[in-house]
């Protein structure tokens, strides 16, 4: 066995690349220097060039992956902390999140199937608007390909965070709460990071969008896919 395929070596490489890109991102403030995206690309390049298979990498990756589900459970804490705010304007928030969640699932699935995507791809696209660990969990629950979903979620997040505020500006959406809420709904964690950069209050609303859309998408994706006759 080659040294590089030892779990601790691969773990060190993964953590190291992530830390380095995160450090560089903080220094340069560039949206394109996305730590997740860069780390995935660099790790894949290393694996491809050294001929290590994904299943070998998974032997070390599973130690990091273990934390995925607990971290989704931990989202219950900000949700609890924001319950007061949500209660005060529960109708506008909940209804707009319902609309966003259903539009996200239906439009993604329909556009993909109109353009002739295969069934696996269509199913994997359905949860693309929500935060990655959640989207992957939903994807595997409905029989999609979690890794493919993860790739789409990252692309959605980068696109949403870079263009989100500009698109809403273009369509004359003025209310700052509506805008920041939608950044979380459409652009999950990356959209929230962008809103958080404007102000903490924007960030709080955005994370509410992230959590609620995640919850609704988890509940509605299987139902909508069944109605559309996909699963």
């Amino acid at each position, binding site marked *: 066995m080659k040294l590089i395929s030892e779990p601790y070596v691969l773990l060190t490489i993964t953590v190291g690349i992530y830390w380095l890109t995160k450090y560089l991102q903080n220094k340069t403030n560039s949206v394109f220097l996305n*730590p997740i995206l860069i*780390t*995935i690309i660099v*790790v*894949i390049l290393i694996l491809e060039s050294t001929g290590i298979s*994904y299943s070998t*990498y*998974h032997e070390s*990756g599973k130690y*990091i*992956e273990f*934390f995925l*589900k607990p*971290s*989704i*459970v*931990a*989202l*219950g*804490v900000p949700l*609890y902390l924001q*319950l007061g705010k949500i209660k005060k*304007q529960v*109708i506008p*928030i909940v*209804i*707009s999140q319902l*609309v*966003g969640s259903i*539009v996200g699932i239906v*439009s*993604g699935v329909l*556009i*993909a199937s109109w*353009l002739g*995507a295969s069934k696996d791809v269509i199913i994997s*696209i359905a949860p*693309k*608007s929500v935060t990655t660990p*959640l989207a*992957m969990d939903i994807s595997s*629950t*409905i029989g999609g*390909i*979690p890794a*493919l979903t*993860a*790739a*789409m979620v990252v692309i959605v997040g980068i696109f949403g965070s870079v263009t989100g505020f500009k698109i809403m500006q273009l369509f004359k*959406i*003025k209310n700052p709460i*509506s*805008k920041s*809420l*939608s950044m979380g*709904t*459409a652009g999950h*964690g990356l959209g929230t990071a962008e809103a958080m950069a404007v102000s903490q209050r924007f960030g709080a609303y955005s994370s509410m969008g992230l959590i609620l859309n995640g*919850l609704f998408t*988890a509940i509605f994706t299987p139902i909508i896919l069944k109605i559309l006759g996909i699963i």
Partner: protein
Amino acid sequence: MIRQLFVILICLALGETIVYFTGIKIPSSIIGMLLLTTGLQLKIIKLKWIKNISDFLLDNMVFFFIPPGVAIMCYLDLISEELIPILSAILGSTILVLLSTSFTHQILRKIKFKKRSSNKK
């Protein structure tokens, strides 16, 4: 720290148990999240019991998905074969989500505020 871990894990384990017995198609992690929120709200769980571990988990959430993300390497062919449907679907849908959510929220807020000010009159 062990108690913190225990609280998170028990929420997750209860979520798994509910999924196992009901066959419900919701991720166990989401059920765990709702159980945690409920527990905090009902004061069964104290915030200080889980503050450290939840900060750690939330701050590093994106990092945890790197290994499953690397699994993309097994699907590179599929992605390049269907690049146009994939990109059109996810980018088009993202724009629709942004606009439908913000538009709905803005209108509902306006209605709510109008009601409030007409009540005052």
